[in-house]
């Protein structure tokens, strides 16, 4: 049954990919949506099935077939569903379904074949993402891991005629590949060390090993490599640069792939290998530091960006940083919790921005927006809910998850990291509401028509055949989100509000059901196939116990921190309101006063330029001038052609001996005679 979950979208992909050009838009959309919804249904059933099992045996497994068998390596195509996976597949299929539905409206301007192509990619993505999540060993996961990278590439470059889009797609793929390189090395290392790549078995083996405290041992190396892989996929320092560029893709894609699902794969991977990572505290610390640094850096950049999607992209990077911070401090449950809530509100925000862009015919620059509140009420309100959620305003989903992260960080003793997290939260609230205010409040700016050469000709792949759509005739009359889009927005908004309530902390009288649900996934299972005995060393109850029993002081601390973070969130919102609603000049003044800093932020710390200057261009120049034209053409071919030239030169030299003079010929012979006799006589 598990195999059906990725299979449905895959079938959808096949239908749309092979017959898409002959299907009408409605039919392709329907096929795609049906595929993902069917997948969602199966996912729900599966989750219900494991929910009905005893807590320590919530595992469903399906071995489809033996995939790669070579010597002692035997990799099965195995799908396994456990509580962690359950959360993930629900998010993927659930939010995925909504985004599919949303897309049917959003992409409606595309011609039939392009429409089908879009949905085939989207379905393929869902299939791969599900494989990633359900894979029971590293290699199956890697299939999904690379597969989603591919779909991300395809979807970012969906509007392939746009140079920037295809560049961005390539960049995403290549940067991901850099991470994958480390990921593969990590896999190889694990297999060499432990002889298996099955998650459960690895966990069991690792749990029997001592924690590598203060030493950088095998597990630390392996996990560090895996983490580097995760930085690629999840856009962390130093491999985050692709994600902002990825906004060149259609907005629903940004919502699904670059916010809700794919980019969280790294977080999921760490959660999946929680046992390994917890045995490598050194790596974990690196994870936490990178996560925190990314969160802060992306937050600062987000503060000054003017492209609506880019702000959201940096916010995504920032939030992912927070998730990694959580993973890094060992709060795996918190990290996954944030992943889960983030999926809702970030998808919501992206879809909301998509609705705005859709309404404005591709305009993405917030400086040209403003005052859209009254034109786009549904969009506005849902967007606002999303922003509140992400800002961490109390009792919305973001509040619970973010709070848990900050609490765990502080609780684990990482005060500096907590501080960074708190600043990030503040920045989050500020830039999100900067976005809200600049977009929806204030005066309406610009014509609302985005086709004045801004380059963002979304939906109109072929500029030459731009047919004015009656529904989008220009003028001051702006359409709010059409029903399909609105549906998705509203559902997600509800989710953004309510999603947090499955993880209400004990301090607030909740039971943190999510943490309890996830706990078995973060430890070695006794039921791991083929490996027995190791599990006793790591009693399964420990984590649950940790989650259940909380002392009074801790509860007080948690409450205090909650208060602090609520204050931070609200403070950030107020600051944003003050600057961008009341005193716009402050913003300009600040930008002017700290011109250097502003430029630095605006240009994203010049990281792309730095990469170009230090890595990309040198490699290119060296390859072309030194390796190809230098070594290959001059040295190697030079040696080859040189040999030929030497033979030819020798030939021309020796043939000159053949003067045509018979006496010279005779003397040549005579020399031979004298030399031979000389050899014999003087030998």
């Amino acid at each position, binding site marked *: 049954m598990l195999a059906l979950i990725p299979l449905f979208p895959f079938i959808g992909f096949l239908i749309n990919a092979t017959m898409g050009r002959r299907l009408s838009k409605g039919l392709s959309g329907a096929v795609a949506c049906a595929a993902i919804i069917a997948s969602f249904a199966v996912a729900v059933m599966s989750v219900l099935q494991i929910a009905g099992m005893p807590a320590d045996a919530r595992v469903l497994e399906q071995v489809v077939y033996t995939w790669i068998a070579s010597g002692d390596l035997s990799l099965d195509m195995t799908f396994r569903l456990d509580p962690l996976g359950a959360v993930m597949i629900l998010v993927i299929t659930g939010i995925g379904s909504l985004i599919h539905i949303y897309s049917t409206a959003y992409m409606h301007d595309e011609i039939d074949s392009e429409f089908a192509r879009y949905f085939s990619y989207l379905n393929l993505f869902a299939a791969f993402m599900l494989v990633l999540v359900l894979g029971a060993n590293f290699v199956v996961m890697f299939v999904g891991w690379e597969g989603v990278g591919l779909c991300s590439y395809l979807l970012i470059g969906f509007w392939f005629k746009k140079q920037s889009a295809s560049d961005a797609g390539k960049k995403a793929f290549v940067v991901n590949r850099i991470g994958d390189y480390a990921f593969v090395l990590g896999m190889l290392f694990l297999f060499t060390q432990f002889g298996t790549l099955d998650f459960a078995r690895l966990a069991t083996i690792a749990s029997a090993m001592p924690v590598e405290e203060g030493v950088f041992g095998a597990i630390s190396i392996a996990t560090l490599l895996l983490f580097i892989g995760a930085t690629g996929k999840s856009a962390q320092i130093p491999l985050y640069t692709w994600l902002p560029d990825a906004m060149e893709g259609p907005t629903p894609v940004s919502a699904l792939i670059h916010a809700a699902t794919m980019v969280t794969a790294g977080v999921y991977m760490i959660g999946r290998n929680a046992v390994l990572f917890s045995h490598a505290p050194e790596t974990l610390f690196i994870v936490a530091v990178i996560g925190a640094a990314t969160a802060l850096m992306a937050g600062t950049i987000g503060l000054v960006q003017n492209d609506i999607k880019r702000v959201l992209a940096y916010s995504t990077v920032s939030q992912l940083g927070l998730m990694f911070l959580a993973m890094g401090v060992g709060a795996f449950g918190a990290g996954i919790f944030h992943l889960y809530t983030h999926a809702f509100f970030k998808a919501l925000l992206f879809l909301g921005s998509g609705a705005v862009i859709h309404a404005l015919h591709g305009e993405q620059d917030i400086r040209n927006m403003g005052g859209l509140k009254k034109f786009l009420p549904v969009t506005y309100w849902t967007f606002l809910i999303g922003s509140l959620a992400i800002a961490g305003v109390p009792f919305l989903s973001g509040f619970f998850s973010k709070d848990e992260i900050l609490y765990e960080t502080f609780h684990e003793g990482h005060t500096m990291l907590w501080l960074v997290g708190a600043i990030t939260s503040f920045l989050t609230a500020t830039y999100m509401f900067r976005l809200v205010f600049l977009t929806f409040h204030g005066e309406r700016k610009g014509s609302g028509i985005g086709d004045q050469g801004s380059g963002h000709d979304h939906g109109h792949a072929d500029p030459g055949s731009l047919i004015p759509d009656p529904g989008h005739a220009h003028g001051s009359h702006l359409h709010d989100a059409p029903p399909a889009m609105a549906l998705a927005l509203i559902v997600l908004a509800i989710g953004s509000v309510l999603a947090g309530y499955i993880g209400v902390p004990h301090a607030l009288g909740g039971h943190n059901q999510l943490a309890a649900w996830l706990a078995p996934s973060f430890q070695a299972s006794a039921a791991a196939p083929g490996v027995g005995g190791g599990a006793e060393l790591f009693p399964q109850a420990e984590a649950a116990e940790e989650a259940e029993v909380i002392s009074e002081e801790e509860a007080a601390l948690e409450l205090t921190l909650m208060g602090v973070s609520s204050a931070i969130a609200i403070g950030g919102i107020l600051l944003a309101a003050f600057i961008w609603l009341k005193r716009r000049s402050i913003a300009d003044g600040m930008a002017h006063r700290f011109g250097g800093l502003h430029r630095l932020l605006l240009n994203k710390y010049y990281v792309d330029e730095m990469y170009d200057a230090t890595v990309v261009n040198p490699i290119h120049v060296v390859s072309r001038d030194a390796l190809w034209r230098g070594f290959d053409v001059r040295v190697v071919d030079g040696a080859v052609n040189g040999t030929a030239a030497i033979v030819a030169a020798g*030939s021309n030299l020796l043939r000159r*001996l*053949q003067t045509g003079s*018979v006496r010279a010929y*005779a003397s040549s*012979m005579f020399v*031979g005679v004298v030399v031979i*006799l000389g*050899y*014999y006589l003087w030998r």
Partner: protein
Amino acid sequence: MFHSSFDAVVPMLCVALAALAVMGAEAFRSRGETMPVGGLGIVGLIGAAVSSALLWNRNAISFGVIVADNFALFVTITLVIVGILTIMFSSPVVKRDGLPKGDFYALILFSIVGMMMMASANDLLVIFIGLEIMSIAVYVLTGIRRDDPRATEAAFKYFLLGAFSSAFFLYGIAFTYGLAGTTRLDRIGAFLAAQSMSDNRLILVALGLLLVGFAFKISAVPFHMWTPDAYEGAPAIVTGFMSTGVKAAAFAAFARVFLSAFEPFSGEWAPIVWWIAVATMILGTVVGVAQSNLKRMLAYSSIAHGGYLLVGLVAANQVGKAAILFYLLAYAVTNLAAFGVIALLGTKNAANDELRDYAGLWHSRPALAGLMTVCLLSLGGLPPTVGFIGKWYIFSAAVGAGYYGLAIIGVLTSVISVFFYLRVVVMMYMSDQPATVVFPPVSTVGMAALVASIVVILALGILPTPVLNLAAESIATIF
């Protein structure tokens, strides 16, 4: 005191009689009448082949100086093949160029007699006389187109240097005679075997001078200088004849003298021949690269092939000796076919033997181009042709005798040689320039000879076993 048996001379007698018949037929024909003199020659040659076959394994000896052992018979048969192919290729050429028909064929046949004599002689004097018969006939054949200054010049150079080298060879015979008191190879061998330990420098002088004589005939470096000029100047078919027949006969005699009589001194001559072989292989291939005349190029290639044969001589083991025989046959058929193509494509006024003349031959004469390609590939030693088997045989002898250096130089130079063979192929198949030369129609006889050669080249390239066994059998009885 005549020997009771004439058996051993029967093959060469057949050929000599055929030559006389040719001359007679030509002399007594009435003006305007055409005589099938080529046919007569072929009959004689076939007679020689048949008698050779009958003499196989009998080791007949006539007059004490002519031995018809298998070695001699193998070479004789090779020479018969050379002769038949030459005559077949010549028949259109003789008519076209207006050559004196009877004299031409007679000279070819007489020189074959000389070659056979060299191959089967057991006496240095007879070898010398055979060599002179062969040489003088070939000098004349080289210059047979008297109206062509190049042919005359070629004949002159060949003759002058040939006579010069004959003097050295003869001087070598003189010293050998002086020391051993005889010119019979078996007796010389016995004498030398007894002397092999002594420090008699005169023996070495004799050895060196004989070496020079043979090295000249097989055009080994540095005695090769006549080769390119003579080969280029001579009519193509004569070049083909002398590059194969002369070489085969000279090698047969060379091998016989140095591997039987002078075998006890192989420690003395092997190093010299080693160096000559190396120099010959390298010079032949390297200089061949720069040639623009096809005949001249093949002349250098033939020098190089002499070098490969010398490798077999240096190796001097059973494999090497058999390899020389096999290679001679392989090389004879291949090279003769290649020159046959050149001869067939020439006209009376234009030899059409420049490389550029072959541009686009594939388009005008696909069959000829294809056949020529097979020849060239065989010369280059590429499978599945007989040239490959021959090279493989030679080099396996070298490797078996521990001469890895020779083998490596040999194979590397053969790679270089492939380059210039390919130049011809490039011209024929891949040239963009339009064909400028109008080629004459090709006669049936010539074509038949070509096809037969190609069949032999391919058949022996794929199934060489019978001939390899024959070659091995040939050397088993004598050395």
